[in-house]
């Protein structure tokens, strides 16, 4: 891509930090993340769960660390300026800095870890890579929950164990399941996208 010379702007020596194509791709991915995290699946037992963790893990497995992390930053930014994009139509600055904000910030290390080995790069997914990727996802999830628990405990003055019981325990099975499912789907989606010969990276 050639960079056009800006004749209107004599001070235009500043090179763009991100090129336009990366910017539009990230923006559209963030929009996908918003749409996906609003989909709810009625879980056995009747409690509807949102796909926030699933959608974030999916983007990370498909897009890798760099694009994944940028996408998440835009997603968190959209939430911070007041759009109800977080799970359960929550949104706003208060959600991000409030008691459960640690989980949202904790998604950032999670997405970097998951994206370290993006899915579907090789044609054949070996069993070893499968375990490495799932393990990376679970470690990332662990970091995300740890960040969430510490933040929750700091804001509410609860001991860590109580914070775990209130913030993490009810969701941990769902989240582990989300990681595994996201991986399975990411492999399938990635393969199809490769077949469509789209430049995704």
């Amino acid at each position: 891509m050639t960079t056009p010379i800006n004749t209107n702007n004599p001070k235009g020596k500043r090179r763009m930090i991100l090129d336009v194509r990366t910017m539009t791709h990230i923006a559209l991915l963030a929009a996908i993340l918003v749409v996906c995290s609003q989909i709810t699946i009625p879980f056995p037992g009747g409690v509807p769960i949102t796909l926030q963790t699933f959608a974030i893990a999916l983007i990370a497995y498909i897009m890798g660390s760099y694009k994944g992390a940028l996408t998440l930053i835009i997603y968190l930014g959209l939430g911070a300026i007041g759009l109800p994009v977080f799970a359960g139509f929550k949104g706003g600055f208060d959600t991000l800095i409030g008691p459960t904000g640690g989980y949202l910030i904790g998604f950032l290390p999670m997405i970097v870890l998951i994206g370290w080995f993006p899915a579907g790069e090789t044609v054949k997914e070996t069993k070893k890579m499968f375990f490495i990727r799932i393990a990376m996802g679970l470690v990332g999830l662990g970091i995300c929950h740890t960040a969430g628990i510490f933040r929750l405990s700091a804001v509410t003055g609860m001991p860590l164990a109580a914070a775990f019981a209130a913030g993490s325990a009810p969701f941990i099975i769902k989240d582990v399941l989300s990681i595994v499912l996201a991986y399975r789907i990411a492999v399938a989606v990635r393969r199809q996208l490769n077949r469509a010969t789209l430049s995704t990276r």
Partner: protein
Amino acid sequence: MQLTLGHYYHGNSVLHRLDPRIKIIVVVLFMVVIFLLNHPIAIAAFGIFLFVMIAVAKVPLKSILRSVRAVLFIAIFAFIVNILTVDAGVVLWRLGSLTLSTGGLWNGFKLALRLFYLVVTSSLFLTLTTTPIKIADGLEKLLKPLERLRFPAHELAMMMSIALRFVPTLVEETDKIMKAQSSRGANYDTGNIFQKAKGMVSMLVPLFVSSFKRADDLAIAMEARCYQGGTGRTKLHPLILKTSDTLFFIGALVFIGILLTAEYMLPPLVFAGGI
């Protein structure tokens, strides 16, 4: 509820018209102050201030309560844990290692109240009275000095507004894809969770493909119009600080000063057990 407006409550009060930059700075300052407040009188004063501000903003109490409801469960949980574990002041009741004391009660009450203050402050000053576009504008302006350190402030704001613009398009697109795939025999509703997830592949692949195409088209369109990033761009509604903004900011600083003076100068009340 419109997704692109969030929980914004339309109005024309003093709070609505304040400069978003001032509001963001004030909210961040209040966040810090809320965590510093321990004295009952200072905490009560902040509560009264919030009620006055709600009245000034002419925001219905219902929308305030919605943000409170989001943290209600955690607040109650924290309250119970605190009254049972903190032992200070006059002990009212004791059972093994669990104690119920005036200090514990106050501590639990204080922490729950802090949570409410936290969410009410930020939703009152930002989410409810400022449109997302304005907040994004304010954030971009505030982060602008960081561009010297290669922080992509303008790029982030630009990506956020692109994402904002495409969310409704993608919602519609997802709906269309699901209907199209259903008419071709795709099944999204039956089977166990793994089968449902498999069905999502047939929805996600077209969604990704069409999004990447849109992104490419948009990039070409932007480059064709010589998009160069933030340098030299002008705005339709530039942010200009008015006298009222400055006055509000000074007022907020004075209020914070008074709160902190009260916090550190007033003698501790007995029932709080020195907490």
